[in-house]
């Protein structure tokens, strides 16, 4: 899932301190799972903002809500009745949700309340790590199920580089060398022959390098 972290309160305060009517909009999707932007976090942020306004002697209204998903119009539409009553919205969805909300309510100020980080796993509560960079052409079948693009700091397709040390990446002792993981998994699977075969330069056109991406699935369209 998409992983995010809450923005520091000071940063959000700086964005919204001059408004009188605010909506904090959480999302029940990915950001709820990583406890960065669900209903619970929306309530916590709204309380903190209310406290700030009270301390400042300001009469400000701060409401909170959470939508099933902010990346779908039908859920965003649920806000249409009350949107006009707010000066601004702080969306706690990932960057996708923030943008779709802003797109749908074109004349409304929408600010992000989280920093969207990556697509990854929950190693344990509060510990998330990256697994996929959505390059658009999955090569996990060839790399023992470990992605060198997401897990090698140099996204090498023919690793490991000469900087890994005791199975750790040269940039941090806390990051496992992706290519050591690949080597060990291929060994376990009896597929080490794949390791010595050079992989040709990748076609990055399906990745970010090809420009903003769009999928049109004719088989699914109504």
């Amino acid at each position, binding site marked *: 899932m998409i992983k995010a972290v809450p923005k520091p309160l000071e940063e959000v305060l700086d964005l919204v301190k001059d408004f009188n009517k605010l909506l904090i909009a959480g999302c029940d999707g990915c950001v709820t799972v990583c406890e960065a932007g669900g209903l619970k976090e929306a309530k916590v942020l709204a309380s903190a903002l209310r406290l700030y306004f009270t301390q400042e002697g300001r009469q400000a209204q701060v409401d909170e809500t959470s939508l099933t998903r902010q990346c779908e119009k039908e859920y965003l539409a649920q806000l249409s009745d009350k949107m006009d009553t707010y000066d601004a919205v702080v969306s706690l969805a990932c960057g996708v949700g923030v943008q779709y909300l802003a797109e749908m309510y074109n004349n409304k100020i929408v600010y992000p309340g989280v920093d969207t980080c990556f697509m990854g796993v929950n190693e344990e509560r509060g510990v998330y790590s990256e697994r996929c960079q959505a390059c658009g052409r999955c090569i996990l079948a060839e790399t023992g199920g470990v992605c060198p693009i997401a897990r090698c700091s140099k996204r090498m397709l*023919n690793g490991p580089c*000469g900087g*890994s040390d005791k199975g750790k990446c040269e940039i941090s002792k806390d990051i496992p060398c992706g290519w050591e993981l690949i080597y060990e998994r291929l060994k376990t699977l009896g597929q080490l022959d794949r390791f010595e075969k050079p992989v040709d330069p990748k076609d990055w056109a399906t990745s970010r390098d090809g420009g903003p991406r769009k999928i049109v699935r004719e088989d699914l369209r109504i």
Partner: protein
Amino acid sequence: MSATTPSKLQKMIASGNFAVTSEVGPPRSADGEVIEKKGNLIKDYVDAINVTDNQTSVCRVCSLACCIRLKLMGLEPVLQMVTRDRNRIALQSDILGAASFGIHNMLCLTGDHQHFGDHAKCANVFDLDSVQLIQTVRMMRDEGKLLGGHEFEVRPQMFIGAAANPFAGPNVAMRASRLAKKVAAGVQFVQTQCIYNMDTFKEFMKILVDRGLHEKVSVLAGITPMKNVGMAKYMQKRVPGIDVPDEVVRRIGGVPKEKQAEEGINLAVEQIEELKGVEGVRGFHIMAIEWEEKVPEIVERTGLYPRPNIDAG
């Protein structure tokens, strides 16, 4: 079969003599004379001179400009290229540019992560990795073709090199496999990471010899003399992929401070003498970091001077 190029380094290796290379690091300013001075210090003692490419991700005069300067001085440069900073368009463009000046040696590297350098906030590129850069140069040279498919007549005549690190462990077999991948991609010579752990290096070479890889790729053993015990400790603790055993630190630290540099040179000389007897070693790459003036002494003391006269063609 490995392609024959006009490279003097390739000819030296083919002659059966131990080859000797060294390297110079470009300055962090527009001073063009630094490379000339460094080149002049070592030119009579080595067969070819590597020029590093923004090593440790610290921005410097570009390798290509320095290689052209050395070439114009009549020396034999080895163009180091990392894939960190340039995409396949820029890399191929620089290869063509180098070849247009008659540069005939390249070292294909992925490069240190920018995290180490003076621009840690920059975007990296890594469009290709070192193995793919090897594939690319080989295609340009042997097929007269760019990765995009364009075919051309005047081909770059590059003797293709890469790095090998037996010590980025602990898995020596994996390191040998990685070199096998570079051989499959078309590499012709490798310069190894600096050797301090002789046992690991010998284990690595034995795997290459057992697999016959030493006949497909010429291994130049990497030697870096220690200037003092501080450097030995720094390399032991701080430099990724370098294995400095405790006895090396003890040896350099075991002599008075004013004698440590001499002890470092003594150790380098002994290492070369020992490595001459290791099957598969075809020469030496002496990386005297900001200590180029010591290269002649090391080459002389190991009987590698004068350099045999090989026709550069």
